[in-house]
């Protein structure tokens, strides 16, 4: 079995042997060099698909040749009311170099609106219960010209607590309620601009989740739905996706939605940092110098400075496809592109999964990856990057590398602090927490106002973060944090700690046996393991 496994099955998979170089692993805002046990299967991200040479032309072509809808220009009439909604700062990750893809889509769409006499236009960020974007972030996303023209009266964040500007669309046949942004729902045409970074994004989720309120969201962001979602990244196997599709159909019955979806390639880092995603065995002398320079610089900087530096590196993503028209066929096409870019066929599950936790998540853009977010990255995202079967066997051990510092951003994540320090010590049972405390946090007047007037995540958001790790938590036998700088954070999360990776692997082997199969996800990566027997 081992011999068969160790054959090179895919360009993104390698096996560690006695001559292998040590591997670079993320460790929060730092990167560390670690020797990995011989025989470990290391999975890298697929190389980037070449981006389209003229993305503006591709977007223009898509809106003029939509799927199952009339072209955009044919839908526009003078005097009509148009709302353009778009993804928030959680997409893509890290934030991409300017001009952001949303700016390009907006330029195409706004040109077309102007040419067809449409001037009643609002731009709404579909942030749902995420934090509202800051003025600077909003400007960066759409460019100075559009910002100056629309901000703040006609370019703003969705407010899931603004009762006057929400409207109930009804209930699905499963009694899931849906209340969404009034302006979007009452417009003659709702245009949605999406960046589909991973397969769980986009589709009906864009409007039905991005523009909804707390009561609508809690119908599907709950522990049982998450337990029943056998990978968020595989929509047909995701109960969460099924519920969102039902809600999306409700939207389609009552609103005219023209969806523009885009897919990106895998080019996460600019030149210089691209070594972070490459096979260390193939490093040239120049690559080794780059690593040395990076490691030396990082070792001299305090954590906050490293974080600032990392957050200042824009992703180099390129658009590999754009489709427009009716939500479902458009999303289907985009998912094909996502899978083409990310899917890695993997033969056999592993007993021990090693994954470094980088300082990149949808919820900590320009802030600290707090302990709850470390949890969501490990058990929510890294665990769920599979199709078919989880990469790790049921009861296996997950080894992560992160300092697990007890640091929270008071402006962005105020309710996380109370959740982590008050609730988790009482119970880690997601159902209990939902029942007893979720609504208390959701209606906490201070949290509501911090969400509405500031840049805080909604009071209920830390609960969703905890639920997000629920299927991972149920599946994985143990989580061991290598390099955790304190004992209490892993303990509160229900994890074990080790001083370093070697010790963590030894602990994992003591649970899983000396012959345990080890796989490492070479983070930071976006890759989807299609796991077969």
């Amino acid at each position, binding site marked *: 079995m081992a011999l068969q496994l160790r054959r090179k099955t895919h360009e993104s998979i390698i096996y560690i042997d006695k001559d292998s170089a040590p591997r670079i692993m993320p460790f929060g805002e730092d990167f560390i060099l670690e020797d990995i046990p011989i025989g470990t299967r290391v999975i890298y991200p697929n190389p980037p698909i070449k981006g389209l040479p003229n993305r503006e032309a591709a977007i223009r072509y898509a809106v003029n040749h939509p799927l199952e809808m009339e072209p955009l220009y044919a839908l526009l009439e003078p005097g009509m009311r148009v709302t353009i909604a778009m993804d928030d700062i959680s997409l893509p990750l890290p934030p991409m170099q300017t001009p952001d893809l949303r700016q390009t889509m907006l330029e195409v769409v706004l040109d077309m609106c102007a040419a067809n006499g449409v001037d009643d236009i609002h731009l709404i960020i579909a942030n749902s219960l995420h934090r509202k974007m800051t003025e600077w972030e909003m400007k960066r996303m759409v460019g100075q010209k559009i910002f100056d023209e629309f901000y703040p009266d006609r370019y703003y964040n969705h407010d899931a607590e603004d009762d006057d500007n929400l409207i109930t669309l009804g209930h699905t046949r499963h009694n899931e309620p849906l209340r969404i942004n009034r302006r979007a729902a009452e417009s003659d045409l709702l245009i949605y601009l999406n960046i589909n970074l991973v397969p769980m994004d986009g589709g009906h989720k864009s409007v039905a989740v991005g523009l909804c309120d707390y009561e609508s969201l809690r119908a599907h962001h709950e522990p049982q739905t998450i337990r029943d979602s056998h990978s968020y990244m595989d929509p047909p196997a995701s109960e969460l996706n099924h519920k969102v599709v039902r809600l999306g159909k409700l939207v389609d019955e009552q609103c005219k939605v023209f969806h523009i979806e885009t897919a990106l390639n895998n080019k996460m880092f600019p030149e210089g940092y691209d070594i972070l995603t490459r096979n260390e065995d193939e490093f040239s002398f120049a690559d080794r110098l780059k690593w040395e320079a990076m490691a030396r610089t990082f070792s001299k900087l305090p954590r906050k400075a490293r974080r600032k530096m990392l957050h200042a590196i824009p992703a180099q993503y390129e658009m590999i496809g754009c489709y427009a028209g009716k939500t479902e066929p458009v999303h289907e096409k985009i998912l094909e592109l996502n899978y083409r870019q990310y899917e890695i066929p993997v033969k056999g599950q592993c007993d021990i999964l090693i994954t470094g936790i980088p300082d990149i998540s949808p919820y900590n853009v320009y802030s600290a990856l707090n302990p709850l977010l470390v949890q969501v990255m490990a058990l929510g995202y890294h665990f769920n990057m599979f199709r078919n079967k989880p990469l790790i066997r049921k009861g296996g051990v997950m080894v992560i590398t992160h300092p697990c510092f007890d640091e929270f951003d*008071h402006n962005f994540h105020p309710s996380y*602090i109370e959740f982590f320090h008050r609730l988790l010590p009482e119970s880690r049972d997601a159902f209990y927490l939902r029942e007893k405390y979720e609504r208390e946090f959701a*209606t906490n007047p*201070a949290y509501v106002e*911090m969400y*509405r*007037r500031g840049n805080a995540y909604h009071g209920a958001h830390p609960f969703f973060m905890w639920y997000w790790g629920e299927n991972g938590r149920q599946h994985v036998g143990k989580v061991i944090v290598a390099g955790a700088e304190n004992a209490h954070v892993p303990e509160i999360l229900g994890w074990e700690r080790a001083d370093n990776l070697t010790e963590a692997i030894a602990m994992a082997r003591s649970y899983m046996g000396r012959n345990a199969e080890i796989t490492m996800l070479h983070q930071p990566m976006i890759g989807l393991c299609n796991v077969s027997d």
Partner: protein
Amino acid sequence: MNRNGQAAAFYDLEGTLVSTNLVHTLAFYAQRQQGLWQTAKKSLETLAKLPFFGITDLYSRNVFNEVFFRSYAGISQDRLRYFADELFEEVLKPAVFDGTPELIAQGKKIGQRQVVLTGALDFTIERLMDYLGIDDYVANRLEFVNGIATGRVLPPVMAAATKAKWIREFAEKENINLSESYAYSDSISDLPMLSIVGHPVAVNPDFRLRQTARQHDWAILDLK
């Protein structure tokens, strides 16, 4: 402590729900004295005392109150009450922070009793309390002799630890569950009041309160 009662929200007023402070009110009355001479005299007096007020407030809120309310000495009760409506319309109402009505509405929505504790004078804030929909409030009361303010404040003087004491007694009397209750303030001088509830919130905090809130992981809210 009652653990089954209703929850309440206890607010400081100046700097927390409205942008004005006690000096704005004093300045308003100083400009409305009998005759031009009195008006000019009182206004100049108030202006001259500003640095002194600032220093005493930094030193102690109790000392500040003692010194500050002396400035009302000699003003008639009628005059103070007569201009209270104008004070509300011209000074206090425009000074209500944008987020204040939302915060109070959210508190009411979840069934909290809305209570304001302020060092301001009772007659100056009656209209404001109605306007904001506050259920209960406690404020300082001037002593009047023959209808003329003596410049002394009747005990208990609402400041610092007195607010916390008043909240405890109020909770006992009104069956309020303090561990489920919220307290909102902008100033470190209200630390005792913030410390006795389950959900303390620093609102538009000064530097020292912001640091304290960060250390204790309290919510920090900007209502401006």
